[in-house]
């Protein structure tokens, strides 16, 4: 006899742990002004009738997670439900903010509360879980995820969320935001590209010459253990001394603070994943393959380009992906030494105890990291030669 219950553990755990704060903790925080102490408002009070829709959909998630609906249908419905709930929660918060603004004036602020963030996290877990490894439904779920993200973007652009404190912070710094977005991207991409340019040959060297392996990895591992804040700090006096000694350096824009030390530190941190994966990638090439290639009359260069590199490339690209995601996060810290990027808002927000300003720096950083991760995975999937298992 078929059981009526078949528990999908991850989805159930996420749905339940998301439900408790969503309905138990404050959904939004209403403050009389930007910096004042706030009052938590529950989902029911904040969203009114929309709260009922959200509650029903959430219940559906939990029921689906324990029911015996056949897999394909179940995962599709779970994914669609989670994908619908994310923009709905945002819309509910945005409407509450608009109401508060209308009744209490524009000085008052409505921030997203713990209930919102926990449930958003739970929904993301459910969406990602249903996306991974469910062959047949994958295309449906990718469409759901894209649609969900598109709706969120539409809500942001349509102005329905403009009354939220986070969006008010954004509105005040609109031009600065895009400036920092640009420097964040430029810093992260420049350092990963440079680290790749250095790391690929270095990784190949550690593969070819065993004697270089231990010192290279010792150095890179040690670099990795230095706290980022400390490394940025250490570089300031070093570079200041260098520019004092060699004035031409300052003519090309090198200073103790700013872009130069940030790039150096970010490149240093990116080297380990790139070099390590390059080394590992080349090590996966069977020595018999190399011997066969040479024995058939390939030159060293032909062997590298036609045989070794294609076999090693999935592992190498994975290293670049790790470096990129890690660097997007670390770049936020670089704002501390004047390099710009979204860290600027984070440190300003910390200084002013304005949590929504911190989020204005943190949320885009996370979004960029997730996009970078997804893109690199897609690129690896396309480039990975067929025939490699």
């Amino acid at each position: 006899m078929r059981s009526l219950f078949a528990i999908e553990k991850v989805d159930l755990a996420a749905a339940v742990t998301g439900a408790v704060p969503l309905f138990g903790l404050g959904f939004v925080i209403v403050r009389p002004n930007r910096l004042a102490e706030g009052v938590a408002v529950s989902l029911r009070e904040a969203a009114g009738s929309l709260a009922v829709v959200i509650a029903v959909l959430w219940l559906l998630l939990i029921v689906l997670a324990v029911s015996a609906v056949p897999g394909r249908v179940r995962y599709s419905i779970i994914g669609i439900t989670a994908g619908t709930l994310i923009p709905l929660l945002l819309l509910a918060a945005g409407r509450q903010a608009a109401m508060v603004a209308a009744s209490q004036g524009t000085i008052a602020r409505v921030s997203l509360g713990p209930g919102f963030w926990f449930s958003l996290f739970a929904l993301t877990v459910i969406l990602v879980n249903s996306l991974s490894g469910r062959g047949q439904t994958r295309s449906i779920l990718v469409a759901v995820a894209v649609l969900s993200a598109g709706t969120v973007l539409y809500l942001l652009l349509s102005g329905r969320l403009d009354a939220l404190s986070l969006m008010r912070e954004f509105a005040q710094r609109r031009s600065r935001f895009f400036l920092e977005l640009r420097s964040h991207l430029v810093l992260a991409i420049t350092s990963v590209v440079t680290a790749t340019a250095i790391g690929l040959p270095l990784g190949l060297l550690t593969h070819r010459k065993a004697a270089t392996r231990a010192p290279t990895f010792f150095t890179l591992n040690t670099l990795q253990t230095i706290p980022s804040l400390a490394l940025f700090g250490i570089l300031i006096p070093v570079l200041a001394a260098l520019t004092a000694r060699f004035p031409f350096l300052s003519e090309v824009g090198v200073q103790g603070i700013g872009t130069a030390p940030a790039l150096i530190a970010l490149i240093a941190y990116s080297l380990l994943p790139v070099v390590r994966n390059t080394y590992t990638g080349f090590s996966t090439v069977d020595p018999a393959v190399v011997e066969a290639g040479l024995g058939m009359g390939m030159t060293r260069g032909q062997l590298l380009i036609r045989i070794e590199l294609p076999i090693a490339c999935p592992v190498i690209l994975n290293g670049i992906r790790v470096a990129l995601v890690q660097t997007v996060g670390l770049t936020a810290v670089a704002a501390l030494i004047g390099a710009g990027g979204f860290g600027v808002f984070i440190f300003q927000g910390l200084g002013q105890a304005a949590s929504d300003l911190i989020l204005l720096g943190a949320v885009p950083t996370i979004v960029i990291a997730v996009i970078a991760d997804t893109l690199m995975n897609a690129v690896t999937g396309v480039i990975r030669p067929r025939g490699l298992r």
Partner: protein
Amino acid sequence: MIRLDRVTKEYFGKAAVADLTLTVAEGEFAILIGPSGCGKSTTLRMINRLIEVTRGTIAIDGTNVEHYRPEELRRRIGYAIQNVGLFPHMTVAQNIAVVPKLLRWDESRRDRRTDELLDLFSLDPAEYRTKYPHQLSGGEAQRVGVARALAADPAILLMDEPFGALDPITRESLQIEFARIQRELKKTIVFVTHDIDEAIRLANRIVILKEGRLVQAGTPEAILTAPVDRFVMEFIGTDRALKRLSRLSAADFMVDAPSIGQEMSLSEAGSALADHRYLWVVDGLRRPVGWLDGDDLGSEAATAAEAMTRMDYRTEGIAADATLREALSRMIQGGIRGAPVVDEGGELLGEIRLSDILDA
């Protein structure tokens, strides 16, 4: 023709190959053999300059190999190794076409050659062309490996224990298949192995090495009959007489077999038996079904079929392409002094006598 003249390879002052002089004639299948560390692989790899000689010269058709760029040299010499080394990211067809591509053959010529080779190695091109190495069995992978070595139709083929990693059954079938292909292609082959049975089965000439020096070189028959010293004798084993038999085929030692039809009456059979010690009894399709000797004549049966000692040609007949060693083993097992040789359909071709084998 490959000529090694006083070739020495030293590593840190210690000789891996010492003063080796050796000629491999065109079309010859030469097998280098010896215990591990005897320098056989080193010697092989010096021919295509994967290893450079310390002293001495190696010449192919009279030209010193150092005359060529190493890559140029290697593209003219086929090379197959124990671990195959197929390129995992390329299909079987792409793997086979590597050297033709390096030699800039055009695509249609490469495709034609690939299919030709797959056919030669009994791999259906339509099925195997687009497979990836991880989809092949060990035996299939090594077939592709050897096909790849033959792709640009090199006159010389170097093979380093190509069948060494295969299970015994696959190894034997590949050896037989490769022997057939070599009869067709007549390449000059230098082949390294540590398996003396493989050497005896395949080689025209066996070169036995020990600690980098040549101990004995000659045809398998010569080495088996006249080992030069204790080392060679021990290396080829105490059953060298038996091993020699595995070089000889049953067909070569077969003599005419006296036979009668199974419907023949016993009295007629009796007169036929006058000239022979026994007669094979065959059925309508000339397949041996039993034998008849003097003792059987005393019976009261009417026909040969009723009086004969029955046998099954499928299990007791010896195939024409079987080795003498196999024939002998069958006879000892069956406790018989003669055995019928049959073709694939079971038809009686002749017989093999124990006394002839002992004389061989």
